[in-house]
């Protein structure tokens, strides 16, 4: 959003907020303070630094009241000269889904009814890698890997050309300077057009209020990442924005027992991801759609 229109927009907003508030006094006065604050909250990218601090203080207080735990909500911005990229070694993945569960725990995803998984591992018959129509999502043998199958974990591919961002009617999702595609959960209107547009099933909907056991909350959260979500909004993998912007690996990378998952800065020639792109034969999922994913699949020679 261009900055020069800021003041006019601000004026219009104040004017209409006043009108809306005036018209809806009977409705709003029956709402809680929390609902009122949420209703009038503006787009995250329009917050000044001070407003961000107030917002965070308010959220931490609210989470303390609601979940009886001290949360740390970060708004850490993108690091300079960073473009995050992911590598996944298909010859190593054994389909154990440890990444899936590590992700659910790290990112405060709903645990049941339904469990919301940002990573999906699909089982494919050997000899047919690209035909996803033949994939099995709910494979459940006593022991993985099974001989005749290979396993392909899929999550948000953090496209350079993200279709989800293009179709969102309200700019509730966007690409950060470090390439991460994020959602402002307080701005999303829940139309699910982005889910229809995503070729990778990278986006999930909170069909109900997320269901997390009280002692299972991860209290180290990012505003654009794993903070507790509300019902009827979209969320997605952020490559663990709360971790990677603090110099840590995403939870899925740490959880993988076979070293399948690699992560690093695409702009750093010395990074592991650049080594992989240089030395291995990599490909990206559904490259024909021109989405330019920053998620590289490869095979060990």
């Amino acid at each position: 959003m261009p900055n020069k229109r800021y003041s006019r927009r601000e004026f219009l907003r104040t004017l209409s907020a006043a009108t809306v508030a005036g018209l809806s006094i009977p409705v709003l006065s029956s709402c809680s303070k929390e609902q009122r604050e949420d209703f009038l909250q503006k787009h995250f990218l329009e917050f000044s630094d001070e407003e961000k601090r107030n917002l965070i203080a308010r959220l931490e207080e609210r989470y303390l009241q609601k979940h009886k735990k001290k949360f740390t909500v970060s708004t850490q911005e993108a690091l300079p000269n960073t473009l995050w990229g992911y590598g996944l070694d298909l010859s190593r993945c054994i389909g154990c889904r440890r990444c899936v569960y590590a992700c659910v725990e790290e990112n405060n995803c709903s645990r049941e009814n339904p469990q919301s998984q940002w990573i999906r591992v699909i089982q494919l018959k050997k000899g047919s890698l690209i035909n996803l129509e033949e994939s099995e999502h709910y494979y459940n043998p006593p022991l993985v890997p099974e001989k005749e199958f290979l396993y392909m974990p899929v999550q948000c591919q953090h496209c350079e050309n993200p279709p989800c961002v293009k179709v969102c009617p309200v700019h509730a999702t966007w690409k950060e300077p470090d390439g991460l595609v994020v959602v402002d959960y307080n701005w999303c209107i829940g139309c699910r057009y982005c889910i229809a547009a995503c070729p990778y099933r990278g986006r999930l909907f909170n069909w109900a209020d997320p269901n997390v056991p009280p002692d299972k909350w991860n209290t180290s959260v990012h505003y654009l990442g794993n903070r507790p979500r509300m019902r009827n909004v979209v969320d997605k993998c952020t490559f663990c924005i709360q971790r990677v912007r603090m110099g840590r690996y995403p939870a899925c990378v740490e959880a993988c027992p076979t070293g399948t998952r690699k992560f690093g800065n695409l702009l750093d020639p010395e990074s592991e991801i650049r080594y992989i792109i240089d030395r291995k034969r990599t490909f990206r999922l559904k490259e024909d759609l021109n989405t330019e994913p920053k998620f590289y699949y490869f095979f060990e020679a």
Partner: protein
Amino acid sequence: MGKLVNTAKETWRFYRKTLALVFTGSKEYYLWCILLLCIMLIGFLSYLKQAQVGLITTNMRDQVAWGLYIANFTYLVGVAAAAVLLVIPAYIYHFGPIKEIVVLGELFAASSITMALLFVFADLGRLDRFWHMFPGIGSMNFPDSLLAWDVLFLNGYLVLNLIIPIYLLVKMYYGKEPNKKFIVPLILMSIPWAVGIHTVTAFLYNGLPARPFWNASILAPRFLASAFCSGPAIIIIIFQIIREYTFVKIEDRALFKVAELMAYAMFLNLFLLLAELFKELYSNTVHIASVRYLYEGLHGNYALVPWIWVGLILNLVAFAIFLFPGTRQRLSTLNLGCVSIIAGVWIEKGPGFVIPGFVPDVLGEIYEYIPNLRELLISFGIWATGFLMFTLLMKVAIPIASGEFSHSKYETEKPAPKTK
């Protein structure tokens, strides 16, 4: 001062008379309205529950993110578009009473668009944040998002279809001739706009390469062709109800001419379907999966198969009825054809179009979606709202158009009107 009092008196008289028109009617009229109000109430209560708990109370899930609501939305946008396009033959063939037909068509379009928008509201997770889309105070993603286009086009169309009939009715109420320089451009504008809303709605799906089933250039023409079938089918039935219950004389000739145009539209619709099926079946790529799922079932999942075949047969039957002058010019078979088209096209471009776009999903998973009771109740509630809106609009508009209800200055003693 005296003038002011007069205006106030006249306004009061208008409201009083309008209320009287709306609240008096035959036994059938009362029964119809009470029935609709009951369905609306049940639908509204179901919606409150959905708003309270979340969309988890529907059968939609991440695999099939849109369901019955968006299916109905798509269908109704087509109906709304076609209602206005009826204005063209009314002028070309000089159907009697043109003014009434224009007013009726536009008010019908307004009611359909209202229903379409209500379906979007029902589907929207965060209705409380709808203002995020308003230009100026919110942050509308225009022109990138086709949904933003759709919101602008649909609301513009709604406004247009309220301004035109209200203007005409006000003029009729005052017994004056409408200012042609003002209203004819608006009426002419509503025609390409009607094509526009349906094209934009088609592009909304068309522009998603992630969903090969929708990513077909034939989509917008198909949408328009099927809309030219379903919209007039509903209107033919409404015309007959109106001439049965009011003084408005609509000749059989007009109905039969519309039916003839529908035969061409249905031919085009079936032809475009054939073109699409040929491309899918003959090239037989992996992207055929959705078509397979729809017409023959996929890996043991058949939820839509009986529906789509019934829809196809209804469309073929209707085509035969409308093709032969003998059957389309007899009211009994004509009405059978209309009902077949209304149902057939609803299946084809409602659930038969929206759901297969999601099955199998982008990673090949099959989730069978069938709407649950809550979605059905909410949908029926919205349909009832549209019907009631149209009924009440007609209840006031027809007496104005036929001159029974006008400004006191022009009021003449007439026999007690035969009312709906």
